[in-house]
């Protein structure tokens, strides 16, 4: 990592994340929906295996879910959901974070690891191609399959025109 003239960058600092925010948000969303097994397999593919240090977690906790009154009014607390979070730092210095719904420490740690790896401009193109895009395609296909089943239960009304 090159020495920064300013204060040490944090992961919230856009200057420390060369990837545009929208791109990072996208891979984080894809990783949040991946299975731990898929991420474990992707880690096994990496050569050499990266080293990392856990800074926080992985730990299981709760996130309060919120709705809006009438769907579009002021917010209200709906109920809690379990979640797992992890923050880590690669030996190379990049920081990664994951917060995911559900209780899965292994998946949260792996998601944080790939979040960190994807911030490395040298690794990003290959990881996007080998990991994120295939996961995104599979997730989109599962959504599409459900949308197609829903579409086949859409009611088609037949209207009879009254003739005089």
């Amino acid at each position, binding site marked *: 990592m090159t020495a920064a003239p300013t204060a040490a960058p944090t*992961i*919230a600092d856009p200057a420390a994340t060369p990837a545009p*925010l929208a791109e990072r*948000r996208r891979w*984080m*969303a894809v990783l*949040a*929906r991946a299975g731990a097994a898929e991420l474990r397999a992707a880690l096994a593919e990496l050569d050499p295996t990266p080293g990392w240090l856990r800074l*926080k977690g992985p*730990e*299981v*906790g*709760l*996130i*309060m*879910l*919120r*709705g*809006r*009154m*009438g*769907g*579009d*009014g*002021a*917010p*209200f*607390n*709906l*109920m*809690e*959901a*379990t*979640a797992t*979070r992890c*923050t880590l730092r690669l030996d190379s210095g990049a920081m990664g*974070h994951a*917060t*995911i*719904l*559900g*209780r899965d420490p292994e998946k949260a740690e792996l998601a944080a690891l790939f979040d960190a790896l994807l911030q490395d401009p040298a690794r990003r193109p290959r990881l996007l191609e080998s990991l994120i895009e295939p996961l995104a395609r599979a997730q989109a296909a599962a*959504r599409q*399959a*459900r*949308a*197609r*089943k*829903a*579409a*086949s*239960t*859409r*009611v088609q*009304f037949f209207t009879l025109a009254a003739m005089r």
Partner: protein
Amino acid sequence: MYVAVKGGERAIAHAHAWLAEIRRGDPAAPEVTLAQLMEQLGLAVDRVMAEGACADRELAALALKQARGDTTEAAFLLRAYRNTLPRFGAAEPVDTAAMRIERRISATFKDLPGGQVLGPTFDYTHRLLDFSLADPGPPPPPAPEAEPEGDATPRVTDVLAEEGLMAREPPGNEEPPDLTREGLRLPAGRALRLQALARGDEGFLVALGYSTQRGYGNAHPFVGEIRVGEVAVEYIPPELGFAIDIGDLLLTECQMVNQFAGSASAPPQFTRGYGLVPGRNERKAMAMALVDRALRAEELGEEKTAPAQDAEFVLYHCDNVESTGFVEHLKLPHYVDFQSELEKLRSLRARWGQEGQ
């Protein structure tokens, strides 16, 4: 006077051993797995999540298995477990307008943008026992598919609001009150009421909702819309400071449309009752929406005459973990209390004997 305060440990241990045996049942029958409960008794799992106020299907399935299928006991187990976990924070309010629709129906408009989508519903089934399910068989063929038409599915209430016929919800982004932190205090604003109703006992809310239809509260509701589907949950981790998508949540939402006569400050228009519950549970979502609307009586200047309009009555009795706790505590030892009742009754009887005969 001294009473026995120790003892019973052995009996309790043996009772729990027998409970474990009964829970498992005949070992010749295969043990149910959490995956089986989640996949095949999913609506029971959804109910436990709602009343346990914790969205985690696997934990709800475990609670249901441990409770031998008793949903109230399972909700209690889930609430107790929830108390052992730290709170990371609060998610951004979910955007149900962006829901990926699995079911979406309206009883007020036949033709509406996005159409009527039935989804995997019990409606229109004949409610005849299906004996083909009695024995395990091959899985059914996959459900038919069709090309989605791709049109948007706006909320029915938005369509009405655009014509000025539906009261808009007051917007806002203030921090809502939290029942799990501050407890229930009256008068309770609508945000707190909705949180209480979302975790409320389904049976109690269905009965109250029904009472408003039968005349206890003068409601004339229509189902503006019910929608079921997944929404993405966004959360701002303090470590990052920007919102990230942390996964999907399946929800059922109900918008009840009710007439409102108007007041000095508002013209006659429709108002809504709102229901939002985890998983697939439109009975609960509809009941919640009916009771939400009934509880708005005061705010809308309507006469408060019925139990469903009485916030204190509804909110203090809708939580089944609390109500069952107080009802069931009656079976715990009350030996000393009862001893004093006995003595009082004996002295009353003695006096009655001397005075009367």
